[in-house]
């Protein structure tokens, strides 16, 4: 027997694999038939409009729910997106959302999810359009893949995301009316701020995880714009050390010595501010000394045109408590009633604005519901006094 016969399986397998690779089957994309949609990457996608079988990997679930007024036609969402949404008020607004099937863990479809996606046969798949994220779906020329991005050449174009979602859900007129409502609500806050002194607050935009502070210079671009609108400045933007999201150096923060800080923490953390206040390393920083750390409310940044005016009002009331009328709670209630036909309870609002945790910080009692009633009582008292005078 030829002793080299032992090599046969090895060579056979390698050779066959090479042959298969050389003459690999190729997938030719199906010709696009109208209606054709142009996604945010500029790719043409065939999507039956309005889409009846929608699969969401992206953080646009809140936009979809807002425009579609519920989870109907929602075929599946990624686990990450679902978990994120369950913790927000929208989770209470649409309790049937929890019954929506889940596909994939992250907002990125992996190769393993490709088969599941094929099984579900969606009309449209909303996915982040970074190459690695949509490659598995594009490799098989999966139809209906709509790429989403927040950063375009012009900057962050939320309106483009909303109009795209409006076309997909068949709710373009609702999209436009919500965009108009946003402009009015935003103007309301900015008009109230017109009377404020011209001094600009030096704030730091920080993130915290398990008691460790990081700085953000890039990621919460949405919050930087909001800060700018209310006349504050994110001082950490000018820091020269660190990357786009790096662990901070307490000495550098001391040098910066911001007046206050807005802190972003993971939604699951409960003691985010307490950990920083009790950490001796940060004790000398003015914002910590003066108890001016504020945890940023629960916020879906893609749901910009509904939630940004609320965040803007929150920032303005925190930064200019004397100028701004105190009506954040009412604003929450009005917004949810108008947009979602839902009345959030005081407990839900407390949770959204991190009432319990932020109460450690200066001036936050203005957002308390008890304080509301107290203020009302004072108002009545003042009114009575005026009448008497």
């Amino acid at each position: 027997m030829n002793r080299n016969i032992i090599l046969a399986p090895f060579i056979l397998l390698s050779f066959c694999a090479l042959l298969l690779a050389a003459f690999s089957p190729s997938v030719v994309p199906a010709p696009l038939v109208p209606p054709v949609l142009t996604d945010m990457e500029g790719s043409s996608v065939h999507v039956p409009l309005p889409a009846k079988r929608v699969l969401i990997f992206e953080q646009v679930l809140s936009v979809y729910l807002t425009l579609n007024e519920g989870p109907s036609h929602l075929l599946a969402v990624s686990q990450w997106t679902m978990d994120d949404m369950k913790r927000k008020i929208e989770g209470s607004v649409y309790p049937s959302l929890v019954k929506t099937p889940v596909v994939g863990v992250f907002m990125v479809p992996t190769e393993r999810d490709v088969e599941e996606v094929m099984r579900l046969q969606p009309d449209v798949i909303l996915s982040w359009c970074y190459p690695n994220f949509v490659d598995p779906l594009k490799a098989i020329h999966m139809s209906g893949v709509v790429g989403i991005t927040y950063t375009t050449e012009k900057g962050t174009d939320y309106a483009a995301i909303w109009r795209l979602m409006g076309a997909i859900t068949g709710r373009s007129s609702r999209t436009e009316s919500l965009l108009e409502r946003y402009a009015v609500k935003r103007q309301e806050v900015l008009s109230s701020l017109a009377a404020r002194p011209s001094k600009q607050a030096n704030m730091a935009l920080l993130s915290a995880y398990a008691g460790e502070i990081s700085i953000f210079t890039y990621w919460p671009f949405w919050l930087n714009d909001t800060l700018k609108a209310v006349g504050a400045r994110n001082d950490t933007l000018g820091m020269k050390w660190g990357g786009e999201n790096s662990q901070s150096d307490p000495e550098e923060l001391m040098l910066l010595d911001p007046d206050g800080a807005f802190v972003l923490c993971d939604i699951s953390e409960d003691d985010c501010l307490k950990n920083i206040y009790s950490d001796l390393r940060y004790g000398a920083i003015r914002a910590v000394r003066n108890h001016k750390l504020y945890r940023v409310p629960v916020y879906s940044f893609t749901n910009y045109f509904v939630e940004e005016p609320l965040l803007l009002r929150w920032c303005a009331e925190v930064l200019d408590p004397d100028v701004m009328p105190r009506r954040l709670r009412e604003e929450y209630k009005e917004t949810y009633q108008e947009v979602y036909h839902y009345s959030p309870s005081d407990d839900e609002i407390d949770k959204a604005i991190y009432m319990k945790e932020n109460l450690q910080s200066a001036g936050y009692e203005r957002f308390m519901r008890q304080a509301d009633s107290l203020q009302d009582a004072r108002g009545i008292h003042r009114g009575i006094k005026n009448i008497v005078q």
Partner: protein
Amino acid sequence: MCNKELAIIETLQAESRKQRAEWRGGIVMVGLFALLCTVMILSLRLGRYPVSVWEIVKIVFTTSPIHAKGLYSNAPRVVVEIVRIPRILVVTLCGMGLALSGAVMQGVFRNPLVGPEIAGVSAGASFGGVLAMLFSLPMVGVMGLAFSFGMLALVIAFGLARLSGKVSMLALVLSGVIVGAFFGALVGLLETLADPATQLPAITYWLLGSFAGATYQKVAVVSGTMLVAGTLLLMLRWRINLLSLGEDDAAALGVNVERLRWAIIALVSLIVAAQVSVSGGVGWVGLIIPHLARMLVGPEHTKLLPASALLGGIYLLAMDDIARSVGHQEIPIGLLTAVLGAPIFGFLFWKTQGRGWNRE
């Protein structure tokens, strides 16, 4: 019975033992190949999209994929031909390559704790891959840079080893450690520079090792490398036997020890660089599979190398099947091979320590 008759009987018995051993080796080899084919077929069944066995058979055998260019509107065909087959081929070939390389290196270094990554090639290839991801290059770029830097690491390790004059195994191991540590540190540096929202998760998952996203391009890279480097290594199995006797004995038997050793290490590095470029870091396969194969066919490299290759293919394919079918999320295979590899290695240590690790 006179001495002459006894000698004849002993010779016949030895001949019969040798034949039996050869038959046994042959049967083991056929058995392993059959098992590999079975696992490959079973793996074709695994996946989220339901495709029946009959449908798989029809897809694989009735229409040759070679002539299947055209419009793919048939989902089961896309699942089998575009999603599953490339992955199974890449996993099998990588498993075969890593185990073969491990068995070769353990023979050449005469050390059962040596793996194929010893020359720092894995770290170099990892650096190349991460660099490509940092610059958002497409997958072809990731593979190309990973492969190139793997080879660069090998050249640097060879160069460093040569600085000490006469190249010894110890010099090569030390230079491999230096090169590995250097490229490892560079990988860490690149990770700190990566965009935490988009690049860092991708880099982390790639470094943990995964066969997700296997394409026919990757099949070409691995199969081409295996066909050349793997076949050459297998053809050198007689000489590796001589090397495992020790430098002096091998030289006395007419082997140019230094040249052969460099050639073998270069071929192994080629395989490792190809593997890392398509799947990131997958450890332990090259370390434990040769020990398992040694338990099956003995220490003789003419049988050990092909048996290791087949067993490596079976092992990694089984691990990949577990990685992609257990739980909601795919487990990075590099983690799985390490989590399961360490206890298996411990078991082998317990089983074989009585006889010493170097049965050869």
